[in-house]
């Protein structure tokens, strides 16, 4: 293992200390490991929190700040945070208007957030939650864990955060988050595995001429292993299942999001975006907004994911609204 760390056991704590050192004007960290917006709680504003394993940076801690999240709960690498963290986050951001939990659909995340929500309600805080489950690589079924929450989560956090910043109430903010979930679909692929610091070796081995299609964001293997293809072919393998799933129709306007998994240069992400734009044009789907970069990652994994969100005027306006966080800032 070759990593820029001091020790696996201290990696997350030192990362958080570094974030505060760099962005102390926007965030602070409270016990037990919760990233909180520096001016929280804001009276009368709905609090919006999220959380998940570490290793997906800048998600979620990098999205804490004006116009996005009020707090984020980072767990150990690829491990959902514990209820104590979400309870502390909920209490820290509660300005009397209630708190929304944005949860990615993983068994552990759901259980830990549910436990925290019950404890917060017992303390008299109104809590609602929305589960993001946008990965079309996973078949949805009553009998399985369902689809994973991936790239759509970042878009939900931005859009919902903007509405909460503008003063929307908890019911409105919750319904909006569900609306994002209902209109967003994603799929990802990997060129390499990644190494969880405490595990010390790559989660899986992938040959020089192989790739994994249908991965999530935890270094886990995907749905299928295939011979390496060209960027154009890979883009089609990801984009077509997404388009057919919702389905996205002629005349739709979308936010097109090409995301790097952490180890892929922006150059390659734009090559993917180029092909994606051609595919969308061929289907008469308009790119209303674009988003390209490493925004929800899987440590140093090479690969990408594509996320499409069907836009309307409300979602577009909220996407464009001002945001000031360690990772995202515009309109200010």
């Amino acid at each position, binding site marked *: 293992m070759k990593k820029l760390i001091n020790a696996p056991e201290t990696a997350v704590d030192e990362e958080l200390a570094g974030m505060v050192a760099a962005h102390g004007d926007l965030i602070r960290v409270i016990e037990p490991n919760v990233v909180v917006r520096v001016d929280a709680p804001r009276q009368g504003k709905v609090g919006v929190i999220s959380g998940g*394993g570490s290793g997906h940076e800048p998600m979620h801690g990098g999205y804490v700040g004006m116009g996005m999240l009020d707090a984020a709960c980072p*767990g*150990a*690498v*690829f*491990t*959902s*945070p*514990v*209820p*104590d963290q979400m309870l502390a986050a909920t209490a820290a951001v509660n300005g009397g208007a209630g708190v929304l939990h944005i949860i990615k659909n*993983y*068994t*552990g995340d759901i*259980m*830990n957030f549910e*436990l925290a929500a019950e404890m917060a309600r017992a303390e008299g805080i109104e809590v609602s939650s929305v589960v993001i489950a946008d990965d079309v*690589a*996973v*078949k949805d079924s009553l*009998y*399985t*864990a369902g689809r*994973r929450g991936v790239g759509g989560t970042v878009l939900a956090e931005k859009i919902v955060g903007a509405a909460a910043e503008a003063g929307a109430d908890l019911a409105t903010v919750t319904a909006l988050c569900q609306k994002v979930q209902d209109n967003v679909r994603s799929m990802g692929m990997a060129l390499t595995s990644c190494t*969880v610091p*405490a*595990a010390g070796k790559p*989660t*899986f081995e992938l040959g020089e001429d192989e790739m994994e299609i249908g991965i*999530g964001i*935890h*270094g*886990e*293997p*995907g*749905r*299928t292993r295939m011979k390496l293809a060209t960027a154009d072919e890979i883009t089609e393998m990801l984009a077509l299942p997404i388009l057919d799933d919702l389905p996205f129709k002629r005349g739709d306007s979308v936010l097109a999001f090409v995301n790097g998994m952490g180890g892929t240069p922006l150059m390659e992400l734009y090559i993917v975006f180029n092909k994606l734009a051609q595919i969308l044009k061929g289907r008469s789907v308009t790119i209303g907004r674009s988003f390209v970069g490493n925004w929800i990652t899987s440590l140093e994994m090479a690969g990408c994911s594509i996320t499409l969100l069907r836009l309307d005027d409300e979602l577009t306006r909220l996407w464009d609204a001002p945001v000031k966080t360690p990772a995202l800032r515009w309109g200010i």
Partner: protein
Amino acid sequence: MSGATSISYDDVVAWINAFAASVRAQKDYLTALDSAIGDADHGINMDRGMQAVIARLPGLPARDIGAAFKSVGMTLVSTVGGASGPLYGTFFLQFGMATVGRDSIGIDDVTEALDAAVAGIQRLGKAAAGDKTMLDALLPARDALHAAAQSGVPLEEAFARTVEAAEQGMVATTPLVARKGRASYLGERSAGHQDPGATSSYLLLKAAADTWFGPVGGGEPAG
């Protein structure tokens, strides 16, 4: 304690310590199982939780078996994360609620407590037999303990049968296609790998039998 008919507070503490030692010894193995079909953290997370558990055990105020189990459960919920934290946390919380205020427990108490613990996991995880989860070790173990208790065999024999059933259940997860947890995302590719949660559940029960009666069964978790 061969021939014993009851389990004392000290036996319970010894079980918890033995499970912590077993998780530490099998940490890399559990993580390797999880690398194949999950996200490569099961051994790491369980070890972090059990180390926190044994650090708190000596500080417990009274020799109350139920309180000890509840402390284990709360600590795991607060330190493990993932699905394992709430699931193992629930196991011990339920086990503790069934044994609260007791300084020794017999086979009927253990049977009842294991029933409650397994039922708690079923409620929280919403998994069924054959979904390739920890329940595939725990459900047959629970049933074996019931059968043994009803047939009136000694405690030692009852536990030997329980651990054997857990081991068979664990080994039988290998060909299954996962329907719950992160392994389910792999679909058919999850077949051919032993479930890490079923493996740690087997280790938990084996730790009890080994501590109380000396090593039983096939031994190695690989089965």
